[in-house]
């Protein structure tokens, strides 16, 4: 084991060493008092890539240097603007409300950009690249460095990011951004992207599915051969609709209404298990459990608890490719693929079982369903199942966590809800979804030139639709920064819009509703702490949310 250390002028101790998972470098930071602020692993298991990105010593010396300023800023947040964190090419980010130091393990990007003649990160602002192209964006300077390609941006608190999106909506609604960093060694994101941030623009692009394709990828990050992992969301019509049709009826609002009591009962059983505890991480105890059990038991007929947990954890990992907590698996691409492989293994086994012992559930239906005149191949079925697992599990759990947080942060609105729970819960769930969309973007690729807000988007350009921004667009929502559970209409874009509108929207809404109902009835004095947030440009995720409540007798 090797170790190096440094003390910042603020008295923070940074100690880097090689140990931990896979003998990988770690960074331990401590406050003046000696209290640990956090530990972050850089556990990439590809030494060659690690050396290329961070230097021959595994990056310890260079990381230390770059971390120092960031740690100072993190320790003295009141006097240092978040913009400096990014301008310093900070490797460290703080989760909202968490004292865990976060390491942005992906710092190679800005150096590459500079090498290639691109602007250095510190001098970047929006509109930096081709916008029919080279035209001035605005004389108004943004309030901060808006670098949507940097994980540093996504480490900032949500409301701070919203200020950046607010500026973009007002001054640069179709802005060009540099490529995000690669997902794995040698896998370069060759192209930048347009950021679409206004509500009506996003609806227009979403509806123009013949111009804006999903088939070349749906994330800001470029995953290769994504269709083989995520099935029909990475397809255009008619293939998209044909595959979607196989399960659409099962997730339709009509069918979910029929399932309301069943989902309520499952939520009740989970809360009955948890209520006697008095405290715990609600993500683990409740938010992951309800969608996991609904999907596994109701839709798949999966009764094995261990396999259900594999699906739940796989779903979480699938949406967490950039989060440092999964870096021990490998680079982001490996994190994503590893999750998909584990989910697919269960998909294949369950498909076999469903063929042998057909039942009245979704899996049995899917293996019998005809697509383009034939049953799905094993590969198609695996991708289809992986998509459903990811979509059904992970987004719903984050929506539940946000709903609890949002109501706690707005006690007047919580009181209003409790005055007439049955009458106001639907609108309250919608407002929470608007306020905190579980997914922040999806991407399209232009198939032909398209004019939007005076900007020419060229065929082949990547276009990213920022739902989190649309939901705060004052052109659509009066007083968008007010959390109002009686807001009407509330046509947020948290489930997207157009042909790719989230198929599981009704199920997700129902699970949030059922959970809040059980909390209100059986854990009425629940208080949650600050959440630990996922580091992601895609998923607005809550990794952990600890709560306390008066234990109820079993």
């Amino acid at each position, binding site marked *: 084991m090797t170790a190096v250390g440094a003390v910042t002028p603020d008295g923070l101790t940074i100690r880097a060493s090689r140990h931990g998972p896979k003998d990988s470098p770690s960074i331990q930071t401590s406050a003046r008092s000696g209290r640990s602020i956090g530990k972050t692993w850089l556990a990439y298991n590809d030494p060659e890539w690690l050396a290329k990105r961070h230097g021959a010593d595994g990056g310890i010396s260079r990381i230390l240097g770059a971390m120092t300023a960031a740690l100072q800023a993190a320790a003295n947040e009141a006097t240092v603007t978040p913009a400096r964190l990014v301008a310093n090419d900070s490797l460290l980010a703080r989760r909202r409300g968490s004292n865990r130091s976060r390491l942005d393990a992906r710092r190679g990007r800005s150096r590459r950009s500079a090498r290639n003649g691109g602007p250095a990160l510190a001098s970047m602002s929006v509109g930096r690249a081709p916008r029919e192209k080279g035209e001035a964006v605005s004389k108004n300077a943004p309030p901060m460095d808006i670098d949507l390609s940097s994980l540093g941006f996504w480490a900032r608190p949500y409301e701070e990011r919203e200020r950046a999106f607010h500026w973009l909506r007002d001054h640069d609604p179709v802005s060009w951004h540099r490529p995000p960093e690669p997902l794995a060694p040698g896998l370069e994101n060759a192209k930048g992207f347009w950021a679409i941030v206004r509500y009506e623009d996003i609806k227009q692009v979403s*509806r123009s599915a013949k111009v804006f394709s999903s088939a070349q990828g749906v994330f800001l990050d470029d995953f290769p051969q994504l269709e083989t992992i995520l099935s029909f969301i990475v397809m255009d019509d008619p293939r998209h609709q044909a595959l979607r049709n196989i399960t659409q009826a099962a997730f339709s609002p009509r069918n979910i209404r029929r399932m309301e009591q069943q989902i309520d009962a499952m939520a009740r059983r989970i809360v009955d298990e948890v209520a006697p505890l008095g405290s715990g991480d609600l993500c683990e105890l409740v938010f992951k459990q309800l969608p996991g059990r609904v999907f596994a038991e109701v839709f798949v007929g999966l009764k094995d608890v261990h396999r259900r947990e594999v699906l739940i954890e796989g779903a979480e990992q699938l949406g967490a490719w950039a989060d440092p907590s999964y870096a021990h698996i490998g680079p982001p691409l490996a994190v994503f693929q590893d999750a998909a492989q584990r989910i697919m293994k269960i998909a294949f086994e369950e498909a076999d079982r469903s063929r042998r012992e057909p039942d009245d559930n979704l899996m049995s239906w899917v293996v019998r369903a005809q697509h383009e005149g034939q049953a799905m191949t094993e590969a198609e079925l695996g991708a289809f199942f992986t998509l459903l697992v990811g979509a059904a599990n992970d987004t719903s759990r984050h929506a539940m966590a946000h709903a609890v947080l949002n109501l706690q942060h707005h006690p007047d609105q919580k009181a209003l809800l409790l005055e007439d729970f049955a009458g106001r819960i639907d609108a309250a769930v919608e407002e929470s979804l608007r306020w905190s969309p579980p997914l922040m973007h999806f991407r399209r690729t232009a198939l032909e030139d398209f004019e939007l807000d005076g900007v020419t988007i060229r065929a082949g350009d990547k276009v990213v639709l920022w739902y989190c921004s649309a939901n705060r667009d004052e052109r659509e929502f009066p007083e968008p920064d007010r959390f109002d559970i009686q807001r009407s209409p509330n046509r947020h874009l948290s489930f997207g819009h157009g042909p790719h509108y989230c198929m599981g929207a009704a199920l997700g809404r129902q699970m949030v509703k059922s959970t809040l109902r059980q909390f209100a009835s059986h854990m009425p004095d629940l208080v949650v702490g600050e959440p630990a947030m996922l580091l992601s440009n895609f998923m607005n995720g809550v990794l952990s949310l600890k709560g306390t409540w008066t234990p109820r007798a079993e």
Partner: protein
Amino acid sequence: MSRSDPAKQWICQSCGYVYDPKRGDPDGGIAPGTPFEDIPDTWFCPVCGASKRDFVVEG
């Protein structure tokens, strides 16, 4: 309210689903050929669950 062209398609402002009178919504009890105005007010969008009043004439 004056009746619009019964063949007109209507779009859900919430999710973008398009109601095509030629197809109707058989799963929702709406027979093919039913003009949008003749759909009961209790009907809701088969994709997102929005109410009938959330629809506008397309185009």
